[in-house]
């Protein structure tokens, strides 16, 4: 009997939870705020769904009900992607060691 592809996806999902568990425990507490902003940015990879939905419209009707939701989702996710990564970058630039700060 063939294994349902869902089981494979579920395996990936569960293994990723374990990876996440160990990786996140190793994050230093002083970087917990950048951790939250970067997880924010990467979870916006949901934009791939939004792009698929938006491109599903036909040439005659680019904007149908389904694709409009896709287009709005693109904006929302794009705000998050750019905002999330850039604000993380901005924060991480500020973390300096003792040596650098001598004037």
């Amino acid at each position, binding site marked *: 009997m063939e294994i349902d592809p869902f089981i494979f996806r579920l395996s990936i999902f569960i293994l990723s939870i374990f990876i996440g568990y160990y990786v996140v425990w190793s994050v230093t507490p*002083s970087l917990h*705020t950048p951790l939250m902003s970067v997880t*924010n940015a*990467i979870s916006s990879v949901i934009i791939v769904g939004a792009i698929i939905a938006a491109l*599903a419209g036909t040439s005659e009707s680019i904007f149908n009900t389904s694709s409009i939701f896709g287009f709005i989702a693109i904006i929302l996710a794009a705000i998050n992607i750019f905002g999330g990564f850039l604000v993380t970058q901005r924060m991480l630039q500020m973390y300096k060691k003792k040596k650098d700060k001598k004037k």
Partner: protein
Amino acid sequence: MISANLAAIFYLVSGILFILALRGLSSPDTSRQGNYFGIAGMVIAIVVTFLSIGNFSSSLIYVIMFLVIGGAIGAFIAFKIPMTAMPELVAGFHSLVGLAAVFVAIAAFLNPDAFNLGIVGNIKLASLIEMSIGVAVGAITFSGSIIAFLKLRGIMSGAPITFSGQHILNLLLGISIFVLIFYLCKTQSTNIFWTVIVISFLIGVLLIIPIGGADMPVVISMLNSYSGWAAAGIGFTLENTALIITGALVGSSGAILSYIMCKAMNRSFVSVILGGFGADNSADDKKEKKDQKPVKSGNAEDAAFLMKNASSVIIVPGYGMAVAQAQHALREMVDKLKKNDIKVTYAIHPVAGRMPGHMNVLLAEANVPYDEVFELEDINNDFANSDVAFVIGANDVTNPVAKTDPKSPIFGMPVLDVEKCKSVLFVKRSLSPGYAGIDNELFYKDNTLMLFADAKKMTEDIVKNLD
């Protein structure tokens, strides 16, 4: 145009890059590189999505346009936002992820053909279940984050909003979601789908309103986790590996942060969720006590004198420092002290501020090197050997009652042993209790000098007096 298999492999690559992005955060040295990995992962995912659709109809130009509009708004926010506003920014971003998940699920429900999920009215059962879970969690994340945003921004009062029957109502709504999803799968009815979304929005609101300001670090972490699970739910619907991996990573990341925050407050996750903490004001009886106990208060001159004659100073920042934007003045004060060969370190309690790591970011912004900043367990033994503890904007996290009084609501919470210092300088506007609603014993200790003023103003005055 690339094959589905090749696309799947690229999605896996971008998932791995996201793992590396989080891995980079294990140290500030590797963190910037980690962020680039994350960006690379995102670029791969987006490009592969375009390539795998291949059919570039005239919609493409609009897709790019919307992408650029969103990106510009995001970039603008990222550069403009002050670091003190980071908690509400993160809450706001969570709400966007939640809403995006809801919209993608709606799009998939209305046009399942585009996602290979079947046809309208006959969507594959598994897809429908995944979609409904994704949409429900996404909607809860959205409305919950909006409430958290309003509370953090101060538009809505941080005080818990409770009413009788609240928990039963939440429970009934929660059960109704499952019942509705069951019927949705049976009937494929569009109306039921909309109802699920509306009820989920309602749950999100009801879930967050009873939670008070001091519990915000838990709420933010929890919503972080939810946004991950919502993404994973959509990932299953779209059969997209990158999304499944990311959802799992973000979900567990938020869950771990919530756990760390709860532990730092010695509260169970359930009791935080049920809310109402800090609401009970048995204020009268506290006032009496206050009148009886003498408090020593001083001015900037006294504080400067004490610190000048110290050989080591530990600074304990809290939310009040963020509110007063005192981090830059604080840094100036520390520079002056260091010139006098006084050893200065910073002690940070895990729940200081309104989100995990909040204080660290603010200090980093003020150019405080991160190797002078220590976590609770690393520095707590040093208080006994230090001359001065400078508490600025923190309160409950220094309260010795947590160690001595089993009846106190914060008993058992790990606190900074500030009182062990030879002298304690406590910058605070008044004697009012903190978010936990309890009096701080530290105020009345013999070795405590209260500095009643705005944190920024007091710090600036001390700087003047240090010359």
